[in-house]
């Protein structure tokens, strides 16, 4: 895994993919990849040097065991984040705290109050554990730190590589529907100063897409073909052998480098429905789904989870506590957990709160 990840990094630098050329490289993002290992207590320490002008950083750690973040310290040594404050909280800030895979990602800052970044050396601690959540000492990990030097956090560009899984690129309905959906996605994000740049590609990955849980290298292989500033979005025909899943994000947040979960995966078919075609309503919803799932990838949670007992940690998404209130106050929010629909129409879910927009702009991949 360690060697594989290093190889992905090298490949990612020269962008061998021949897409339609809409994307350009950027000098706002700095990527540094190193390796390290956990100490005797199973803690992997990651240092992030923040210089003048750096607005945010994204840490990606990859091991052959399980890994999750425990703590973040600012340059003065103050504890800024501690996993136990969030692990069982009813508020969600980042999935970096949760043992989900052999990789863990932290983007910082997330909320306006979390920044601006103090210059100096930030220190993040990640726990490497075995299958029984016992800490594993002296275990290797790949560490990638990306920093963003963005002169304007109110305007950002997201570079998305839309990859059609094997065979999907030959399906005119799938590609036309996806491209129309992308235009809807572009409209939604433009309202909050997020410009979407898109490049389309054809991939070798099977159209029955894997769940992005890090158990196969297929997603890493696909996203390794692209730059380290791009979000990879893979369009398949089903996910994990099922139409239950119309789209899944490889993390909250997701990484920008090639890795076990480095993509958002979507089933075009689940978004087209039983007729296998995209009408206007399907396209609108597909576009909202693309924006919703990549919103997760950029670190956004649902403002409230279905069940109305858990909320995001943002300040301006109301803490509703029942169906009527939540649908009434948040049903048109892009990140609401479900579209509010009758059987044939859904309320447009295209509203983004100021704090959601701010968190999106602070994602290190929003350049």
């Amino acid at each position, binding site marked *: 895994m360690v060697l594989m990840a290093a190889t992905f990094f090298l490949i990612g630098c020269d962008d061998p993919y021949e897409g339609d050329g809409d994307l350009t490289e950027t000098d706002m993002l700095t990527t540094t990849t190193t390796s390290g290992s956990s100490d005797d207590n199973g803690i992997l320490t990651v240092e992030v040097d923040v210089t003048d002008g750096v607005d945010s950083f994204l840490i990606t750690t990859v091991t052959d065991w399980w890994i999750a973040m425990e703590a973040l310290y600012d340059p003065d040594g103050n504890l800024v984040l501690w996993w136990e404050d969030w692990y069982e909280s009813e508020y969600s800030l980042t999935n970096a705290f949760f043992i989900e895979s052999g990789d863990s990602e932290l983007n910082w800052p997330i909320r306006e109050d979390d920044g601006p970044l103090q210059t100096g050396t930030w220190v993040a601690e990640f726990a490497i554990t075995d299958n029984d959540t016992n800490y594993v000492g002296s275990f290797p990990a790949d560490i990638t730190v990306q920093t963003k030097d963005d002169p304007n956090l109110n305007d950002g560009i997201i570079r998305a590589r839309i990859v059609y899984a094997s065979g999907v690129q030959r399906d005119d309905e799938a590609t036309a529907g996806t491209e129309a959906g992308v235009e809807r996605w572009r409209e939604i994000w433009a309202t909050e100063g997020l410009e979407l740049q898109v490049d389309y590609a054809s991939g070798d990955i099977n159209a*029955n897409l894997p769940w992005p849980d890090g158990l196969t290298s297929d997603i890493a292989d696909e996203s390794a073909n692209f730059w380290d500033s791009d979000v990879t979005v893979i369009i398949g*025909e089903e996910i994990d052998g099922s139409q239950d899943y*119309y789209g899944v994000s490889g993390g909250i947040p997701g990484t920008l480098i090639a890795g076990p979960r480095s993509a958002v995966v979507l089933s075009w*078919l689940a978004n087209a*429905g*039983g007729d296998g075609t995209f009408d206007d309503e*399907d396209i609108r*919803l597909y576009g909202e789904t693309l924006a919703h799932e990549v919103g997760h990838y950029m670190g956004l949670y649902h403002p409230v989870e279905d069940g109305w007992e858990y909320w995001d940690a943002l300040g301006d998404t109301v803490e509703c506590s029942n169906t009527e209130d939540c649908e009434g106050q948040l049903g048109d929010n892009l990140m609401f957990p*479900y*579209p509010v629909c009758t059987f044939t129409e859904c309320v447009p879910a295209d509203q983004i709160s100021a704090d959601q927009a701010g968190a999106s702009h602070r994602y290190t991949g929003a350049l």
Partner: protein
Amino acid sequence: MITTLLLMSGVATAATPTPTPTQQALYDALVVRHDPPSCDSLTAMTPDPVTDLAWLVDHATAPAWVGMRAAQCLLTSHARASQATFEGWLATEGHRGLAILFTQQVDQLPLDVAQALSRSALAGPDRAEVERRLLDSDVPGIRELATE
């Protein structure tokens, strides 16, 4: 927002048959973006899963994944009971998505049901696509139908 919802409800009521409370509950369960209920859970919600899930396939067009999830549940857990319904869909225009779904699930179906549905699909409007996909089946008795 509330006004919009009320207006939409009025439009939808005029345009589509009224769901039963059970069909409404199934729809509400399937509309979620993530972590949909299992087919077993859906089945437990209704005394007549085939009728109610098929109703959703026919009438719940938004969001698209509701009908697809309902159809998948029919195929994976009620294949024999829903065979006639599926045969009707596969034989008529406007069900390409269901035809593709069928080919994705065909190897998991009881062989006699899979063969009957394959014959319907191969005689239907999406024949060429179904044929190509059935040739990839791991089940010889399915592949043979695609080459006849």
